[in-house]
Structures are given as structure tokens and as C-alpha cells.
């Protein structure tokens, strides 16, 4: 007995279409998607802002530079002139887009322009790491769940090892080493300062988060009649995986993407905060926070602004993720933990 007659009412128009329809009707998910779009567009406009509005290079130090506030030329970094004259304070928010809208950081760089550029990096790392995690996690989970036996045992133990490492400890361990050397894996060489390094580290540590639940799903599927039937009919394993197994686990994997992106962005910022994430001169919201912490007492904007952006973006991703989950696979659950 189904208490919701609407389910029986319409002929099922295919799971994807239903999901899309559900999502379109989810107002909070739509709002979140709109917010994300705005953030993405804004970060894409970073060069426009830097070149045509702020007229500044946010990757260039302006330690001895000057700017114009209220028609007067002032230094970007002002040394203290009272008392013992200790310390140097960067210019604060001027609310003038052409001249340090949100003030300068300790290198005299335009914080607003850096926020836009940093957003690109953060989003890039978040999205690529999430996609990488989901793809690898799905592959690993499917292979382990389907193959069973020794393969499963080995993969599961490896996942256990990663799982038993507190996330940040593992990430920091890997970062400390990789940031010194870069990464050389067979033909792949990643330079120490490359953005792909944090991407790889974040992707690696979260693989079990995806692989474990998917492996469980595949284990259940493996014992379903239609798989037995397909095996019995002599279909090649690859085809069974592609035609029968994958379509059943891909929705779950997709559900994880936005949630994973949020998690990856938070992790990226935390690693950058511990100065083992994105390396200068690249900027991400995490590194801007890190730069700003040295100015927390004098210029809190430098720290607070990127933090708010991270919170806003990850919140939007989480809401969107919830929407996708409700639409595609309400039972999918990602292990939380910050």
C-alpha cells in the first residue's frame, strides 16, 4: 500500500527524468545552484576585475606601492609611526573597486582580486578532487564488490588502512612529503607547486568514503537474479559491469559528487591553512585565510571574507547535494566529519 498515490499515478518516465523533475521542484536546491553559478561566474571574471576595474596584478607584491584613497595618495603598507613604531599595517577596505575594495594583504596585494582568483583555485581543486574521488572510488568499489575473493580482500584492507588514518593526519603526512619532492608516479610527474598535488592528496584520502558504500551496493547486486542470469547467459564480465552493475551504482556516485566537492573544498582550505595545501604564489581561499591570519588583529577582513565565501559555497554545495540525493538515491550517505 503506497500512501502517495502520485507515484502510481504517472507512468514512470525513466529514473533520470524523474530525478531531474524532482530537482527542478526543489526550491532550496535551485537557489543553491543559482548561488553556485554566481560564485563560479564571479571567479571566472577574476581577470576582468583585476585588469579593468582594480588595475592591479594580485600575484605581484606591492610592498612599497601606493594607492589613492579619497583623492590622496597613500602607501599600501603603512609602517606604524607612533610609540616605538613597530609593525606595518596594510590598507583596509576602501569600498572603492578601483582601489583596494577590500583592502590589501601583507604583500600589498588587492584582497578582492585575490578572492576571485582564489575562488577559481578552490573550486578547481574541489571539483576535480571530488570527480577524481568519485571515479576512482566507484571503480575500486565496483571491482572489489564484483570480483570478491582475494581482490576484494586486498582492496578492502588498503581501504581500511586509509580509513583508519584520521583524514587530516594522512593529508598532512602526504603533503609534507610531496610538497618537498613533487610526485613521480611512473609517467606522471607533478611539480611540487602544482595544484594537482592537493587534488591528488584530497582525492586519495577520500576514496574509501566512496568505495566502501559502493562496494556494499555491488555486493548486494552481485547476488541479484538479473546478475546471475547475465552470468549464466555467458555475457562477458566487462559487459555485465557496464550494462548491469554500473547503471545501478552510478546514481549513488553522482549523489556523492556535490557533497564530496564541499568536503574537498573544506579540506583544501584546511590544508592550505596548515600551509601544506596550495602553495604560493597560487592563491586559494584557504591560503588567503592563512595570509590573513597574520593580520587578524589589524585587518580581520582578509581572513573573514574568504572564510565566508568558503562557508557560502560549501553550504550551497551541501544543499544542492541534498537535493540531488533526494532525487536520485535517498539512501546514499556520505560519512561526515570535518
Amino acid at each position, binding site marked *: 500500500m503506497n*500512501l502517495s498515490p502520485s507515484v502510481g499515478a504517472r507512468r514512470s518516465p525513466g529514473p533520470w527524468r524523474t530525478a531531474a523533475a524532482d530537482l527542478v521542484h526543489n526550491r*532550496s536546491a535551485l537557489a543553491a545552484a543559482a548561488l553556485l553559478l554566481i560564485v563560479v561566474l564571479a571567479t571566472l571574471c577574476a581577470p576582468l576585475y583585476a585588469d579593468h576595474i582594480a588595475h592591479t596584478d594580485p600575484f605581484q607584491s606591492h610592498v612599497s606601492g601606493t594607492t589613492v584613497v579619497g583623492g590622496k595618495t597613500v602607501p599600501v603598507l603603512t609602517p606604524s609611526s607612533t610609540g616605538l613604531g613597530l609593525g606595518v599595517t596594510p590598507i583596509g577596505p576602501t569600498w572603492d573597486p578601483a582601489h583596494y575594495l577590500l583592502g590589501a594583504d601583507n604583500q600589498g596585494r588587492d584582497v578582492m582580486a585575490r578572492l576571485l582568483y582564489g575562488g577559481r583555485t578552490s573550486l578547481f581543486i574541489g571539483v576535480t578532487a571530488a570527480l577524481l574521488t568519485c571515479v576512482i572510488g566507484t571503480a575500486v568499489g565496483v571491482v572489489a564488490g564484483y570480483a570478491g575473493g582475494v581482490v576484494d580482500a586486498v582492496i578492502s*584492507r588498503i581501504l*581500511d*588502512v586509509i*580509513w*583508519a*588514518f*584520521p*583524514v*587530516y*593526519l594522512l593529508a*598532512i*603526512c*602526504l603533503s*609534507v*612529503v610531496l610538497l*618537498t*619532492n613533487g610526485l613521480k608516479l611512473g609517467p606522471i610527474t607533478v611539480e611540487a607547486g602544482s595544484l594537482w598535488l592537493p587534488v591528488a592528496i584530497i582525492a586519495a584520502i577520500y576514496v574509501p568514503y566512496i568505495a566502501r558504500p559502493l562496494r556494499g551496493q555491488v555486493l548486494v547486486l552481485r547476488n541479484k537474479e538479473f546478475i546471475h542470469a547475465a552470468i549464466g547467459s555467458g555475457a562477458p564480465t566487462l559487459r555485465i559491469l557496464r550494462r548491469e552493475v554500473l547503471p545501478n551504482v552510478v546514481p549513488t556516485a553522482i549523489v556523492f559528487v556535490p557533497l564530496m566537492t*564541499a568536503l574537498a573544498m*573544506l579540506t583544501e*582550505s*584546511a590544508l592550505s*591553512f*596548515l600551509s601544506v595545501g596550495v602553495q604560493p604564489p597560487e592563491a586559494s581561499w*584557504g591560503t588567503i*585565510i592563512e595570509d590573513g*591570519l597574520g593580520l*587578524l*588583529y589589524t585587518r*580581520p577582513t582578509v*581572513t*573573514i571574507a574568504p*572564510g565566508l565565501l*568558503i*562557508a*557560502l*559555497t*560549501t*553550504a550551497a*554545495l*551541501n*544543499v544542492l547535494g*541534498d537535493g540531488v540525493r533526494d532525487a536520485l538515491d*535517498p539512501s546514499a*550517505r556520505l*560519512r*561526515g*566529519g*570535518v
Partner: protein
Amino acid sequence: MLSFALKRFGSALLVMFAISVLVFLIFFATPGVDPAARIAGRNADPATLAQVRHSFGLDRPMPIRYLLMMRHLLIDRDLESFVNRGSRVIPQIVQATPVTLSLVIGAALIWMTAGILMGTAAATLRGKAADPLIMLVGVVGVSLPAYWLGEVVNLITQKQLHSSVFSWVPPPGYVGLSQDPGQWALHMLFPWLTLALLYAGIYARLLRGEVITALNEDYVRTARAKGLSERRILIRHALRCSLIPIVSLFGLDFGALVGGAALLTEVVFGLPGIGKLTYDALQNLDLPVIMGTVLYAAFFVVLANALVDILYARLDPRARHA
């Protein structure tokens, strides 16, 4: 049952062994981390350097070095830090544990209470304005970067409003519970709230989903048909069943946090717990301490996994015969 327990124990040992090897390899593979030069002191002459290298067994082959380290850590229990010479690893961990436990237990109490209240309230108020509002608070909590929140809390309580509203807030740091319970609680208050805010959201969101699912279950309908009060149905039936997955997740999170996952909170609030110990050791590349803390962390995660299984059986009779 016994064979299951043994198997489980065996796999836990295997995991911990693999982790220790991994940590060992990661750190000895890094250039510039050779501890000999750092132990000997800057610009030490070659003879002294060789002497130090020998006395620390650093001139032995890697497997021997690994075994030596593990023997000192686990059997002799006298493994010493490379940086703070003479400072033993195990007492350091033993000392840091109560700090982390203080932080994690207090925060867990807060976040579980808040999470359960928020999640249940949102589920029962579904369709009303309060539900999305509560969930928004939850989402924000999940989406805040932990360290950033901590720094902002510090900024507000220690500077911006320190002269007015928050003049009672002590400087960051830790005071032992046995030393002064009042100060202990006062020092821990903001770390607790910060950590709890991050997790309360996760649990509230999760619990809301579970309770909503449970409220649509047949047994809830049965309970209602029995003439039970809504309150009793919610708490004794729907919530009781919804807590099963929550508790298992809680076990994992708690294990990881006790193991040092509260690192960011500890670092930001200057709490000398396991997370901070590990972080400092990583900063110093102090391999013995890293090894000790990472194994300790892994131990707690593995232990938490096992406890969750047992707890699961306690909470869910269906799992008892699995």
C-alpha cells in the same frame, strides 16, 4: 563468534602494521628529514654526525631501523623524540590524551544533544517554517571551515568584544580538570562549542532524514493504531530506531576525534592534545612522535569500528545473529 573476533583482531593488527610501515616509509623517503644532522646540531663536524647517527641506529638498514623503532615504542616503551631528546613518546601521548578527551567528550555531549534535538524537531516540524530554518543552521555548521571558525571565535572573544561581552573568557590554553574544574570548563567552553557546531549540523541533518523515514515506517503506523501518544511514538519508536545508524556514525567520528582528528580545533585554541602533538611533530618531522600518535590514532579508529559493531548489536537486535 571466537573465530570472528580473532579474524577481526587479526585484520586490525594488519591495518596498524601497514600504517606504521607507511608512516615510516613516507618519512624516511623525504630528503632533508635525516634526523642525524638535526640531532647533532647545526654545523656539527662529520665525526659527531657519524657518532649521533650510530647511537640512534640511523646507520642501520631500513628494516632493522623499523624494527628497532617498533621495539622501543611497543616493547620497551621508551621511544624518545628526535627533537625533544629525552622526552619519551608514550608519556607525551598519555599526557595529551586527557586534553583531547576533555575536548571531544564535552563537544560530543553538546553536539549529540543539539543534533538530536534539531534533527527530531526538524523532522516533526516538517512542512512548517521551522524545518528549513533548523536545517539551514545545520548546513551552515557543516559548511564552516573548522579552523576559520576557531580563529574568528578567538578574534571576537579575545579582541573585538573582549573588553565588553566576553571579558570573562580566559586566554586560549588548557587547565586540567583536576587542577580547577571551573577554569577547565571555562577554557574548554569555546573549543567545545566550535567543534560541536561543526558536528551538530551533520547529525541533525542525518537524524532528520532517518526520523522522517522512520515516521513513514509501518511500525510507526502500528504504534499509532495502538493508541500511543505522538510523543511516545516519536521518542520510543521512531527516534529509537533512527538512532541506530547515528550511533554507529558517532562511534566512528568519536574514535577519529579521540585519535587526533580534532587537530584543527586543538591547534587554533592552543589545546595540548593529541591532535596538536601530532601537528607539532609533523611540523618538526619528529618521526618517533609521529609514529606514536599515528598508531595511537589508528588504534582508536580501529577500536571505534569494533565498538560500533558491538554497540550496533546492542542497539539493533537484528544484527545480533549476523
